[in-house]
């Protein structure tokens, strides 16, 4: 069977998949750049950790409340964000990340620099679930997030997001309440990050403010952009590849932030759709191959 180490890596990657998919709702589908996604992961992690360690909640209610709280904070913070446009939105969301991280770091209630410890893994049928069990739980959450993702994309909400991403003013002229649908994107995306944060807290059993800093936000964004922003496969593949990379190569771990920074720059310059976006080299090559193959079949 899988070794404990491999399971640990897979769980970490799984949590990143949830984070990347949830950021993709905001940045990929609705087209609203966010450089502060880790803040909502942190809000979920801290909500879950506090409920568990201080209010004697068990994992499951803490997990769902973490999603709700992160979603609600996302909705409230989205409102000032929506008054600004693209480049300012990047700076505002970045600022939110710093404020949230500083709040965890300096407010004693949140454990300040010491963080919060003693968060146990979830229990099922009276006993703590094993690591493979936790991996199964993460996989289940990913499946649920994918199901919600597909449902949204097939609905009028997905279409409204696409219109806003393409041309906000034209979307308004087509009867779309732009503010409301943007807030919805931030709410759902932040809720997803909150759920991931809760899983993260109960997996590591110990959280610190630095886990939810700006650097973490950049890591999540890199995964989305690397795989192919605005697609379903992109963020998943991005999270798997960039999540596994530091485990495979030690230098990649040490120079992680630098590496992701360079990666983002290169992608923006040469493959703005990521490696698996509709206009990426790989996907265009795949379509070309299939077209060549098609006449042979007939």
């Amino acid at each position, binding site marked *: 069977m899988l070794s404990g180490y491999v399971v640990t890596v897979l769980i970490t990657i799984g949590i990143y998949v949830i984070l990347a998919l949830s950021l993709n709702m905001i940045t990929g589908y609705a087209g609203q750049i966010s450089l502060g996604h880790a803040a909502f992961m942190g809000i979920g992690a801290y909500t879950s950790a506090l409920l568990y360690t201080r209010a004697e909640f068990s994992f499951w209610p803490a997990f769902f409340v973490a999603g709700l709280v992160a979603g609600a904070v996302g909705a409230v913070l989205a409102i000032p964000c929506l008054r600004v446009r693209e480049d300012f939105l990047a700076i505002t969301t970045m600022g939110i990340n710093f404020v949230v991280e500083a709040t965890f770091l300096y407010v004693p209630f949140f454990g300040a620099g010491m963080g919060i410890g003693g968060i146990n893994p979830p229990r099922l049928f009276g006993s703590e679930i094993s690591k493979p069990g936790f991996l199964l739980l993460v996989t289940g959450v990913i499946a649920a997030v994918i199901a919600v993702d597909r*449902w*949204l994309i*097939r*609905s*009028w*909400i*997905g*279409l*409204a997001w*696409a*219109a806003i991403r*393409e*041309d906000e*003013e*034209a*979307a*308004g*002229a*087509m*009867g*779309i*309440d*732009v503010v409301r*649908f943007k807030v919805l994107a931030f709410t759902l995306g932040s809720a997803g990050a909150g759920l991931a944060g809760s899983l993260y807290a109960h997996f590591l059993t110990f959280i610190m403010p630095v886990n939810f800093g700006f650097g973490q936000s950049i890591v999540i964004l890199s995964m989305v952009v690397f795989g192919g922003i605005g697609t379903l496969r992109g963020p998943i593949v991005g999270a798997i590849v960039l999540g596994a990379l530091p485990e495979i190569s030690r230098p990649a771990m040490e120079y992680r932030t630098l590496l992701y920074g360079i990666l983002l720059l290169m992608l923006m310059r040469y493959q703005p759709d990521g490696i698996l976006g509709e206009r990426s080299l790989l996907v265009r090559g795949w379509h070309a191959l299939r077209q060549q193959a098609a006449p042979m079949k007939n």
Partner: protein
Amino acid sequence: MALLEIEHLTKEFDGVTALQDVNLQVREGEILGVIGPNGAGKTTLFNCITGMFSPDRGTIRFRGEPIQGRRPHEIARRGIARTFQIVRPFPALSLTDNVLVAYGHRYYPRLGASTTASRTQASLQACHRLLDRVGMAAGHERAAGTLPLGFKKRLEIARALALNPSLLLLDEPSGGLRHEESQELLELIRRLNQEGITIVLIEHNMPIVMGVCRRLVVLDHGIQIAEGDPAAIQRNPQVIEAYLGKASV
């Protein structure tokens, strides 16, 4: 009662008056032309009507109800649709999806309804019919960004029609088009009007304006300098002056 009544409409940008005390009425069933030199405030007028700009003074009534200062989506849902002077289709979306976005206006107001599937047989057929209606019978799955200008303009009209509008605002529909394309568009505008849609047309192409509008409003530097039938407008000295300069009067 007029379909749209504008009274004392004034809009300023940083002290520059774009529209000054404009009063006009759009009658149910007509095609009203809005003409004037560049910078006369024609597009600003459209932007005020559709809620993209909030007027500084004055009222805009649609079917007797004031709409000035309302947000664009509210005005669109009431039945005022527009096209843009510089075309703005959703470039990465297919033609069908472009129209579908506007067709969704009946689902967006309620959260429950907006979670239902968008690409149903019924909604897709409705969108294809709208595309057919503006003369785009094929290639519905193409990305809108790849279309030539003439078709982008038609697509914008199809999209506007998906709002089921009673008032359609067309901002220079013939701009950048070849003569034959303009003529086809003129036919389309006439047909839509015969089908019961009231139309306001901003247009630089005088043959089109004269051919399709029975009433014109002339703006110059944000001021409404004339109103009347095309023949009277063509003889109006103020209009001639606005277009050709003082010396030619």
